[in-house]
C-alpha cells in the first residue's frame, strides 16, 4: 500500500513541478518568478523525502535539509537584491 502511495506522491509532485515551471516561464512579474522558484525548491525537498521513503534510506535527509536552507537563502537574496540593488551591504 505504501508503494502505491509513494507512486501517487511522485505523480502529484511531478505535476506540481510542471505547474511551477509554467509559472516560472510565464511570469509576468519578477515576483512571480521568485515565488515559482521558491515553490520549486519546496517541491524538490518533497521529492527527496519521498525518495528516502521509497528506498528506505536515511541518507537523503541531509540533502533535504541543505536544500531547505539554500532555497530560503536564495529567495531572500533575490528579494534583497530587488529591494536594495545589493545583497550584502
Amino acid at each position, binding site marked *: *500500500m*505504501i508503494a*502505491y*502511495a*509513494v507512486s*501517487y*506522491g511522485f*505523480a*502529484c*509532485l511531478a*505535476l*506540481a*513541478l510542471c*505547474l*511551477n515551471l*509554467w*509559472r516560472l516561464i510565464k*511570469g*509576468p*512579474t*519578477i*515576483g*512571480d518568478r*521568485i*515565488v*515559482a522558484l*521558491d*515553490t520549486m525548491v*519546496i*517541491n524538490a*525537498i*518533497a521529492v527527496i*523525502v*519521498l525518495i*528516502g*521513503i521509497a528506498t*528506505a534510506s*536515511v541518507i537523503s*535527509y*541531509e540533502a*533535504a*535539509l541543505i536544500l*531547505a*536552507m539554500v532555497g*530560503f537563502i536564495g*529567495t*531572500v537574496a533575490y*528579494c*534583497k537584491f*530587488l*529591494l*536594495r*540593488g*545589493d545583497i550584502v551591504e
Partner: protein
Amino acid sequence: MTGSIADIAISAMIVLGASFALIGSWGLVRLPSLMERLHGPTKATTLGLGGMLTGSILYFHLTGGAWSLHELLISLFLFITAPISANMIAKVHLHHLRVNPDDDGLDPTGPAGLPPAPSGTSAWATYEAPGRTSTAATSEI
C-alpha cells in the same frame, strides 16, 4: 512490515501531503495576481511537505524502530522560513508597484485589490531602489 494500520497511516500522510503540494502549485498557476498567488505555495505546499515529513517519521519509526529527528528539523526550518520569504516577496511586489506604478505586464488589482495605504503620511516599509528618485525610503514620504 508492521501492521496494516501503520501502513494506512503512513500512506494517508503521504497521499495527503502530495495532494496539498499539488493544490498549492495549482493555486500558483490559477490565482490572478501575485498577492493571491503567494497564498498557495506558502501555505498549502508547506503544509503538504509537513504532512509528507510526518509520514516519513512514522515510516522510519515503524520499520526501523527508531525515532529520527531529521524530518522534525526540516519541517521546523520550513515552517519558520516560509512566512519570512512570503513577507519578502510581498515587499518586492509593493516596491515594484511603487517604483514604476504603470509598468504593467502585471495585474496589480486582482479580486483582492491593492492593499490599503497604511495611514496618512506614511507608506509601506519597503526600501528605496538606489538611483531612483523615489523619496519613499522606509516609512515617511
